[in-house]
């Protein structure tokens, strides 16, 4: 079967990648950062104490009973992760956890060991009595991990076995988040563990209603969304890296200005700052309202409008003998930057396919590269003239 093949291919590769300090991505609603995976030696969330209430005896060691209220530390950790600080190492230990007065007949909810995923689940459980089975997804959220296969059939079967789940609960049902489905073959799991897999709602916030309805999800619970506030939250990550580069460039230009190279000025820099904001913030936030479908196009379009504004604002338009080259630099570089960054938001979106993004890139990449190259040539000309 082609499916199994892909899994085998992915398996060893993932381990390899886990150890590298290469740019690393964690997909789904929060895809693709470049945060490196430092201090790989599984330092699971150190301040574990504040979210673990006590421990109870289980067949395979102690089971932590966890709190369902997020503490200030949890929230601080969440904000940090959103900005990419320590995001690739924000993990909880895989295994079984208990919530409330979990009993043998309490439901088993499966989650990933990315602490944001785990936290968003436990804070929804309130007064519920349940078990949480945390899979080892190398600290990556459910959807991305499912895509990679780490939130997958193998890991689920393995985790059910090593935690002795069948001796903890009297029933034979595990509830998975629906977004785990790309990695898990429910029928395979049942065949191998005798546990039935039921796909719960997409969002943890619907868990209570789902359980109350006798483990039935409404059509609304099954739909993934990408609302304004979902997109807004993700822009923090989109902006973190481009701004890092902008700060470095600015610092270099600033130092150069002491050496007599007058390249550093607010007027020279703000158009680029704006282009980054457009690609990393305005396109994501305004996404459905910008005409067109390709992300790069949306970014290019707003970038073009921004370039026109900047040029008029700086008196470069209408063009004169002295100004047209600088105006051209803006028209060529700014839309290229915002288009490129907007294209990157495909990874954070919840509706683009590999085929769709490949097609978009086939047209966008050559256009962006051409526009940027010519823009850099013009920029060089302008800079050399200014010396």
């Amino acid at each position, binding site marked *: *079967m*082609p*499916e199994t093949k*892909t899994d085998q291919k*992915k398996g060893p*590769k*993932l381990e390899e*990648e*886990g150890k590298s300090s*290469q*740019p*690393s*991505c*964690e*997909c789904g609603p929060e*895809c*693709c950062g470049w945060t490196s995976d430092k201090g790989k030696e599984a330092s699971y969330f150190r301040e574990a104490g504040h979210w673990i209430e006590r421990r109870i005896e289980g067949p395979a060691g102690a089971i932590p009973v966890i709190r369902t209220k997020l503490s200030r530390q949890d929230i601080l950790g969440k904000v940090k992760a959103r900005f990419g600080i320590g995001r690739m190492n924000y993990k909880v230990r895989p295994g079984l956890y208990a919530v409330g007065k979990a009993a043998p007949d309490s439901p088993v909810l499966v989650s990933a060991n990315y602490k944001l995923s785990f936290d968003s689940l436990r804070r929804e459980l309130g007064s519920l009595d349940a078990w949480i089975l945390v899979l080892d997804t190398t600290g*990556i959220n459910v*959807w*991305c991990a*499912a*895509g*990679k296969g780490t939130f997958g059939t193998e890991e689920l079967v393995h985790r059910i076995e090593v935690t002795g789940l069948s001796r903890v609960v009297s029933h034979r049902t595990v509830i998975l988040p*629906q*977004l785990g*489905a*790309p*990695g*898990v*073959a*429910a*029928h395979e799991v049942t065949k191998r563990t005798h546990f039935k897999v039921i*796909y719960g709602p997409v969002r943890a916030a619907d868990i209570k209603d789902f359980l109350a309805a006798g483990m039935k*999800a409404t059509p609304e619970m*099954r*739909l993934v969304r*990408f609302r304004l506030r979902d997109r807004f939250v993700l822009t923090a990550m989109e902006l973190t890296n481009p701004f890092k580069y902008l700060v470095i460039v600015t610092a270099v230009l600033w130092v150069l200005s002491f050496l007599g190279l007058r390249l550093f000025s607010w007027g020279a820099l703000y158009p680029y700052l704006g282009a980054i904001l457009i690609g990393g913030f305005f396109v994501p936030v305004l*996404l*459905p309202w910008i005409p067109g*479908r*390709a*992300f790069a196009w949306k970014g290019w379009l707003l970038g073009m409008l921004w370039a026109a504004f900047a040029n008029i604002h700086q008196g470069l338009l209408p063009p004169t003998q002295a100004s047209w080259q600088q105006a051209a630099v803006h028209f060529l570089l700014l839309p290229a930057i915002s288009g490129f960054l907007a*294209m*990157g938001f*495909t*990874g*954070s*979106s*919840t*509706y*683009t*396919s*590999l*085929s*769709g*993004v*490949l*097609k*978009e*890139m086939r047209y966008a990449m050559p256009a962006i590269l051409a526009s940027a190259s010519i823009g850099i040539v013009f920029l060089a000309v302008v800079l050399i003239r200014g010396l």
Partner: protein
Amino acid sequence: MREHRHLSNVATLAYDPDLCTGCGMCAEVCPHAIFSIEGKKARITDRDLCMECGACAKNCPFGAITVRPGVGCAWAILISEIKGREVPSCG
């Protein structure tokens, strides 16, 4: 009409109704609700909404659905190009 729509006519989703038993797993796992069960068969209602996550194919016990699963992420595709990976994946 959904709020978000990417490019049309690109999805690799394929479905063989002859193998389908109408169990409804695909409709259950699809995050964009593109399957509907009519009679004893699944039907693809809007192929252009498919994001190729692969959940339906993976969970179809009868192998009636195929799709090339992958991440619709430009950075992942770029990094995979650079590293010479066959299938773009995150990380």
